[in-house]
């Protein structure tokens, strides 16, 4: 053993204080999701149009889209928590893919259907700008709260963790948005949603990159 490594081990061991063991990632993800659900229960009634929402839920395709949105958010958050600790399989990153396909597929289908029904109106701006603002606006506090939780694990590969976290909060924000969203979504609306989600993921990934660049030992 080279003297410096031996010295380092002695130094590390000598300064080892007891640490609070991290709870299993799935449990931590559930805690965080319960917190978000509680926040949603308080905030949603302030802006939701429940009559509109009830009318929309009669359409099974909307229900599929809604489920896809929620499941993408939940799955991406769980995957981010799992990947934040060292010994979890990288395959967790694929967990949000099936619901994401369901979400994007059903949104795309609904847009296409409206385009056929409404003609050129299918390409018009709906509530796009407001949707964009809502997704980014909801994602910001959710993202900060998620980063605080995820940072506890000091992830060794922060970029994928942050990107999945970004997808998670964007999915949940899009789910909240459905409570006050007009039924006739256009392709441009979908584009705005995608742009908002892309921005949230990009911003989270930037945080991840920064975190990686500043990986410091205590």
């Amino acid at each position: 053993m080279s003297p410096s490594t031996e010295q380092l081990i002695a130094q590390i061991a000598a300064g080892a204080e007891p640490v609070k063991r991290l709870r299993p990632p799935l449990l931590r993800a559930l805690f965080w999701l319960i917190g978000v659900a509680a926040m949603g229960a308080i905030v949603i009634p302030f802006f939701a149009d429940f009559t509109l929402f009830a009318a929309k839920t009669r359409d099974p395709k909307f229900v599929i889209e809604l489920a896809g949105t929620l499941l993408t958010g939940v799955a991406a958050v769980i995957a981010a928590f799992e990947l934040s600790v060292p010994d979890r399989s990288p395959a967790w990153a694929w967990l949000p893919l099936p619901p994401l396909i369901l979400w994007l597929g059903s949104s795309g289908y609904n847009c296409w259907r409206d385009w056929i029904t409404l003609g050129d109106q299918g390409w018009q701006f709906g509530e796009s700008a407001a949707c964009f603002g809502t997704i980014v606006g909801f994602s910001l506090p959710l993202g900060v709260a998620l980063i605080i939780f995820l940072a506890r694990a000091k992830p060794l590969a922060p970029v994928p963790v942050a990107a999945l976290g970004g997808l998670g909060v964007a999915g949940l924000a899009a789910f909240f948005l459905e409570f006050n969203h007009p039924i006739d979504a256009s392709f441009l609306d979908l584009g705005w949603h995608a742009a908002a989600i892309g921005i949230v993921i990009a911003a989270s990934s930037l945080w991840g990159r920064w975190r990686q660049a500043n990986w410091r030992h205590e």
Partner: protein
Amino acid sequence: MADRLQGQDKETDWSRWMAAAQEGDRAAYERLLKDCLPFLRSIASRYHRTADRREDVVQDILLTLHRVRHTYDPARPFTHWLATIASRRSIDALRRRGRTEKTEIFDDQAYETFSDPEANREMSVRDETPALQAAIATLPDGQREAVELLKLRELSLIEASQQTGKSVSALKVNMHRALKALRAQLKGD
């Protein structure tokens, strides 16, 4: 069979020692880190050939392990947790090296070129731009001589005076005028 049993024993010991270390048992922690050192070295050597670099990476892995020790769950295999950290940090070190090599160059002539004055003089003559050489050639004899002796051959004023038989003040004046002329000429280009 015996190897596997030994491996299982080691896994159990390491897991137990790590759990104890999480609770602040420093002796168990030191025993664990020393015991798993060959394992860490074997992983680091898959990515890094030279002994120095491998040891640097092993030390980085040890520091990382210390930093994320709260993420180990004693209900799960310790070796897998440790091996993931070790591989991850070994790969990160490779990436860091790649980035450094992209922005820095290794110049095997750096010593001769920049530390040895003789080699430096030879190199700088080669590196001179044609414009400067042409400008020096147009100077009057006295001024050109001053530049060649004092700047290109880097003689001291006294050495140059002894070599040319001119006074130190005459050399100074010639040098001053030469620099002024060169500056004006090169600025004009």
